């Protein structure tokens, strides 16, 4: 399981709607809000899946930017073993 956290920038006034849309996505949790910025985690099987989920946020109305802060991939089964 890959665990990552992001800051999603919302157009002011759309934060609640965006938070709802985000929370409806499998593996996504909305934790906090700092002004127009939502703190989100994604739990997905692989880095690839995590990226796909994060990239899909741009389709949500009001999402301006998707910033990755932290990604832990120590348990990604798809990564080549060193």
């Amino acid at each position, binding site marked *: *399981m890959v*665990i*990552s*956290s*992001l*800051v999603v*920038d919302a*157009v*002011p006034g759309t934060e609640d709607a965006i938070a709802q849309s985000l929370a409806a996505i499998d593996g996504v949790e909305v*934790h*906090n809000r*700092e002004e*127009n*910025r*939502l*703190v*989100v*985690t994604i*739990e997905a099987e*692989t*880095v*690839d*899946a*995590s*990226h*796909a989920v*994060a*990239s899909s946020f741009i389709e949500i109305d009001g999402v*301006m*930017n*998707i*910033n*990755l*802060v*932290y*990604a*832990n*991939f*120590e*348990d*990604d089964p798809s*990564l*080549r073993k*060193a």
Partner: protein
Amino acid sequence: MEISRREFVKATAVALATAAAGGSLSMLVACSGQSESAVSGGDTQKYSAVCRFCGCGCGVICEVKDGRLVSVTGDPDNQSNKGLNCVKGYYLAKVLYGEDRLTTPLIRDDSSTKGTEGGLREASWDEALDLVASKLKETWKADKSRLAFWGSGQQPITEGYITAKLWKAGLLSNNIDPNARLCMASAVVGFMNVFQTDEPAGCYTDLDYADVFVTWGANMAEAHPVLYSRLTARKLNDPNVKHYDLGTLRTRTSASADKTLVFHPGTDLAIANCIANYLVENELYDADFVEDHLQFKAGTENIGNAYDDGYDASDVGQSVDKVWNIEFAEYAEMLKPYTFEYTSELSGVAVEDLKELADVFADPDKKVMSLWTMGVNQHNRGTWMNHNIYNIHLLSGKIAQPGSGPFSLTGQPTACGTAREVGTFSHRLPADLLVANPQHRRYSEAIWNLPEGYLDEIQKPGFHTVKIFREMSKGNMDFLWSAHNNWAQSMPNLTRFLGRGDQKGVFDTFVVVNEVYPTLSTQYADVVLPAALWVEREGQFGNAERRTAVFEKAVDPPGDAKWDLWIILQVASRVLEGEQIDGRDAFDTLFGFIWDKSAGDFKGDSRQTNIDIWEEYRTFSNPDLNEKAKAINDNASGEFEGKLKMEAKQLAPYEEYLANHGLTWPVREVDGTWLPTMWRFANGSQEEGFDEVGIAQYGEEGLAGGISFYKTAKGKPSVVFRPYEPPAEEPDDEYPFWFCTGRLLEHWHTGTMTRRIPELDRALPEAQLNVHPDDCTKLGVTDGDLVRVKSRHGEFEIHVSTAGRTEPAPGVVFAPFFAQETLVNLAVHDYYCPLSKEPDYKKTCVSIEKV
């Protein structure tokens, strides 16, 4: 992962993102080198690094457990990104651990197998190095013009520095050029012509203070996402902030701009002149700034296009750099044809939109930031267009102030740090120095401990990138070595350069490729040398805001893959065997300070090696460290035109970069503390990021805007009149469309790293041709149809999409170049800006027909 660890990691993830959102991340991620992690707990180590994807240069913290990278965090202490990364950050781990990493040297015994997936066999390092060295030495001894090194804006600073030193001082050859020639050479020549010093006066912090943003042919939302995020954050904080997007097609950047001005290809030259004309004609320019700071010039016009291989040597090719001084009144006269009406008719942009944009520059209270990259640089008049943007910022005095300035973005992580600052170009020496200038050669000889006059043999510039490949295709190149690039996909006119058809050129050249994954370039290699990637060794990047940052070695390279520097020095020690410089061993004179020839290895560890190289390189911008160099810098003998003022690019000791997670040059020592400069040439406190020390040393106080262009000749930047001249090709009956190529968010450049990621590849699985719906109707094609795109130079097949990521205007089509199976560069022409020699990837004329 155990439950407890998983909970801990998740709690960490939330804490980090919460802190980043509120801007207080620094406390949580304090990175103390190899100490135990404060982030994830347990037995992990943390290292500071820099993202290796685009030119933003974002800091990241790498966490390592049991010799493997397990997490990346945006580095809050790196001021370029302050803890935030874009979604490409996910792939920083993945890029190291792809299944098909190259881990052993490969040799091709039969050159007729080039261009196929087979033909390479495994070899030992000794066999591969001996073979490469013998071929290089054989060519070097026979005819130096028939060898070349093609480097990169991804080659870390110390590696680029040593490579350039080997080529320039070791082999006495100028046939070395970086792939940065393909992305920002026009910006470089623009900077040098206008300011006589490379790189912007401002910095990324300007994004937080500007009142108006103008993007010129730049899709920042996809190509520079972290910076674009800062731009949109600024707009959000102040509803009066405006963004004008200028381009030949609508992009994701246009989607969030307040206004998009779509112009006909090449007419951006006229638009900038139109703004200048408006300012001058209506006396809306900054008169004090003009009086104190500017000189006016005109230059050679009607310079044609570099169609044939002999262009550079032709009469016009030889005079393209010529400029001469004119009066302000003459400049005003030259601008006169660029009325709103004429420019509107030429460009297709409405008069009222042009007027609105011109008024932005006319408003003395507005802070304006212009941003550009490939649309301006990859332009048959790329250098001119850089000039024209500077012209309007200089006339309006909107430069070198927080929130105001022309800002040239870069595409690669260290196009600035290595290609430009180290000077891995065919005409350069380190730190903006030129091979053609005797004072510059003397200065380099002093630092490299060479006898006076030793570098006179390289006073004539070598082959620029397009010239290298044109000569190769004609059978005039016997040895080509490339590193950190994928020329077989990224060069224009691949039909010619890959020897499609005649099977000549590249098939007869001995090609060496340092690589991390199999690419199209390795398919043309005679020897493939597997290299360490990113944090598998220590290195340094320099980004677009003059920030130099170190990435520490965090993990070991896989298998037998080696540090590029090790590879370079192994070959150098073989090639220079028996050679002498002034009676001394040549190799030891140049590289003995880091390499023990008898042991066949570095003298110190990777950190010490980097420090030792950095300290020598840093002498170029700290002449006080070398008595002989100092005398030449000061022109003590009086034999040269004046002082070199090398301190204008001053770099700090290596440890300062580690301690500060990057610093923007010039870095100044004030009371024992090394302080960066955020706004060059602007007077003010050094502690607050202004250029106090530089102005005190070489500048003048009390000039308009508190600015002093102290590195520029006579202290006066040049406003050079550059007219509109048409693109190299224009649509006709046979080739009625403009074809433009570029980069999209998910796939970085030629996709050698990002396309190894299946999910990412699924997100954007293939390169598609974006076509305007009206053009689709005309052509009788619909979404998903396969078409053949054909130019005068070559052709490729591709699927059509009207719902793609760009929305071209009628008559313009776009496709990205990341896909190896859709090799768009087979058709792209290789005509370049005659001044910068940077090819125009944006305006090839093509026909389109349904397959």
